[in-house]
C-alpha cells in the first residue's frame, strides 16, 4: 500500500481526509465506532468566544438528496472547548483545525487570541458564513471587503496558518477567494453550506444545505478558485465516497472534508481512507 500522506501548511498529515466542521460532534462521540486517529486532521465544530445555545427546534430537514440544518452554531465556547479537549487530541496525535466564528469582527479576533499557541493546532479555519449582527445579519462572507478585514484581523492575532472558509451565494466566489488571499490567508476551505429555506405550515425556517446536491457546486468553486489563487484548497461539499474525493483532488483540492455523509453512513471516513490507501495514487 502506498503512502497517502500529504504536506499542507508546512506540516505532514497522515492523509488528505478531514471531517467537515460541525459534523463530527466535539470529537469523542464517534470513537464508539472508530478512532479519530484515522483522520488526516480533525476539524472542530464552529467555536465562538461566548457559548452559544443555537436555534430552537426543529433544526434538521431531510430533503431527499441532502439536508437543511438550522443548528445555529451551538457550542460551549472556545476557551472551555480547548480546556476540555486539548489533552484528547494530544493523546491521539491528531492535528486540529480550529473552526471559529463571531457575530462581530472583533469576536473573530478574540477567538484567534484565545487559541494562543495551543500545541495541537494545525491551523485556524475562519467560518465566514456567519451573520454580522451589526449589519442586521448580512453574512460576513458575502462581501470581499469584510472577508479581507476579518482574515487580516485574524492573521495579525495569530501565528497559526489561517484558512478562509467560504460559501457560494450571490457573490462570485473567486472574488472572495482573492480577497482572502490578499489579506494573507494561507488556505481556503470550499464550500460551506448554501443558504436555503424550508416552508413549514406556519413558519419559514432558514438554514444551510449540505449533502450530495452540493457536490457539483463545490467542485466548481474548488476548480475556479484553484486557478485564481496560489494557496492550498480544502474541498468540501457532498462527498459520499472515494470517487467523490478523487474528483475534488483532481479539481485542485489539496485535501478534503467529509460532513453530512457521516450522519447516514458513519463509517464513510475510515472506508475512504482505506480505499485511498489501496489506490496508491489520487488519479
Amino acid at each position, binding site marked *: 500500500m502506498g503512502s497517502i500522506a500529504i504536506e499542507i501548511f508546512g506540516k505532514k498529515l497522515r492523509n488528505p481526509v478531514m471531517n467537515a466542521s*460541525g*459534523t*463530527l*460532534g466535539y470529537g469523542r*462521540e*464517534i470513537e*464508539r*465506532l472508530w478512532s479519530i486517529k484515522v483522520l488526516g486532521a480533525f476539524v472542530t*465544530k464552529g467555536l465562538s468566544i461566548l457559548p452559544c*445555545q*443555537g436555534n430552537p*427546534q*426543529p*433544526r*434538521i*430537514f*431531510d*430533503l*431527499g*438528496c*441532502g*439536508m437543511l*440544518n438550522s*443548528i445555529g452554531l*451551538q457550542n*460551549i465556547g472556545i476557551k472551555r472547548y480547548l480546556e476540555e479537549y486539548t489533552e484528547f487530541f494530544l493523546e491521539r496525535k491528531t492535528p486540529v483545525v480550529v473552526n471559529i466564528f463571531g457575530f462581530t469582527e472583533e469576536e473573530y479576533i478574540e477567538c484567534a487570541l484565545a487559541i494562543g499557541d495551543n500545541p495541537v493546532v494545525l491551523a485556524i479555519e475562519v467560518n465566514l458564513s456567519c451573520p454580522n449582527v451589526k449589519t442586521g445579519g448580512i453574512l460576513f462572507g458575502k462581501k470581499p471587503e469584510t472577508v479581507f478585514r476579518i482574515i487580516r484581523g485574524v492573521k495579525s492575532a495569530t501565528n497559526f496558518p489561517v484558512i478562509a472558509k467560504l460559501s457560494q451565494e450571490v457573490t462570485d466566489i473567486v472574488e472572495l477567494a482573492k480577497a482572502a488571499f490578499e489579506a494573507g490567508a494561507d488556505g481556503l476551505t470550499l464550500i460551506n453550506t448554501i443558504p436555503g429555506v424550508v416552508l413549514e405550515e406556519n413558519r419559514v425556517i432558514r438554514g444551510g444545505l449540505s*449533502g*450530495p446536491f452540493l457536490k457539483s457546486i463545490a467542485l466548481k468553486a474548488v476548480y475556479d478558485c484553484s486557478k485564481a489563487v496560489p494557496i492550498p484548497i480544502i474541498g468540501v461539499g457532498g462527498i459520499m465516497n472515494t470517487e467523490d474525493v478523487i474528483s475534488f483532488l483532481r479539481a485542485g483540492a489539496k485535501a478534503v472534508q467529509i460532513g453530512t455523509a*457521516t*450522519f*447516514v453512513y*458513519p*463509517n464513510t471516513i475510515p472506508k475512504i481512507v482505506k480505499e485511498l490507501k489501496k489506490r496508491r495514487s489520487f488519479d
Partner: protein
Amino acid sequence: MKHILGKILENIELTEKHFLLTVKVKAKIPDVVPGQFVMVMIDDKKVFLRRPFTLYKVGEDTISIMYKVRGFGTNLLSRMKKGREISLLGPLGRGFALRNRDLYVIVAGGIGIAGVNLLIERMKGRFQIFYGTSSSKGLALIRNLISHDPIIATMDGSFGYKGDIISCLSQHIHYFSGVDFEILACGPKDMYVSLKNVLVTYRVPCQVLWEEKMGCGMGLCFGCAVKTENAEHPMKRVCLEGPVFDLWDLSL
C-alpha cells in the same frame, strides 16, 4: 452502538396508521436498555437521513419497532416487504433508569406505547400502565399488554375513561399517595406539559422519553438539542444524553 444489518421478517399493519416491523439480524445484538433507539435506513435512494425508532422488542436474533406513519419516511417504511435488507444503527441513547421503587406508573400516549413496551416486558416489581389513545381502534397497539390490566382512556370515549390520559391519571393519582412511586412516560410533547402540571405540587419523580428530529442519532450534528434547567450546560443532545430525561430537568 454498532451497525446492524438484517432482513425484514414481517411488517404487520396494526391499524391503518400503525405498523410493527420485525427484522431478523445476522450478527449478535448488543445489550439493550429499555428506552434506547435505533437509527433506521429506510431507502437510501429516496430518503436521505435515517429515522429514529425506539427498540420495541429484542429477541435472540430479531429486533422489532412499532411505528406510526407520520410523513414521507414512515410512509415508505410501511410499504417495505418481507425479505428486504435493512440497516440499523444502535442501540443508541440513554434509556430508562430503574431505582427499585415500590411502584412504577407507566404512562403512554398513542404510539408512545412503542417507547415503553420493552420496559414493561422487563419490569420486575409492581407497576401500573396508563394508556391513552384517540379511540378504541388504538387498542390494537396494546393487545400484548391486556393481561397487565392497563387503565385506558380514549378521547372519544369509545373505550374506558373519556378524555386524555393525563386527566385520567390525575383522577387516580391519589391512590398512590404514601407509596414510593415514579412515573415513566412516553408520548407527545403536550402530554408532558399536562403531566408536569399535574405532578408539580408533589414533584413526583418522573422520567420521560423525549423526541426531536434527528440528523445522526450519534451526537455528531447537534440537530436534536433540547433546553434543560442545567445552568452550566443548558443544551442537551437528545440522542446522547436522552432520549430519556428527568421531567424536572427539561425546560418545558
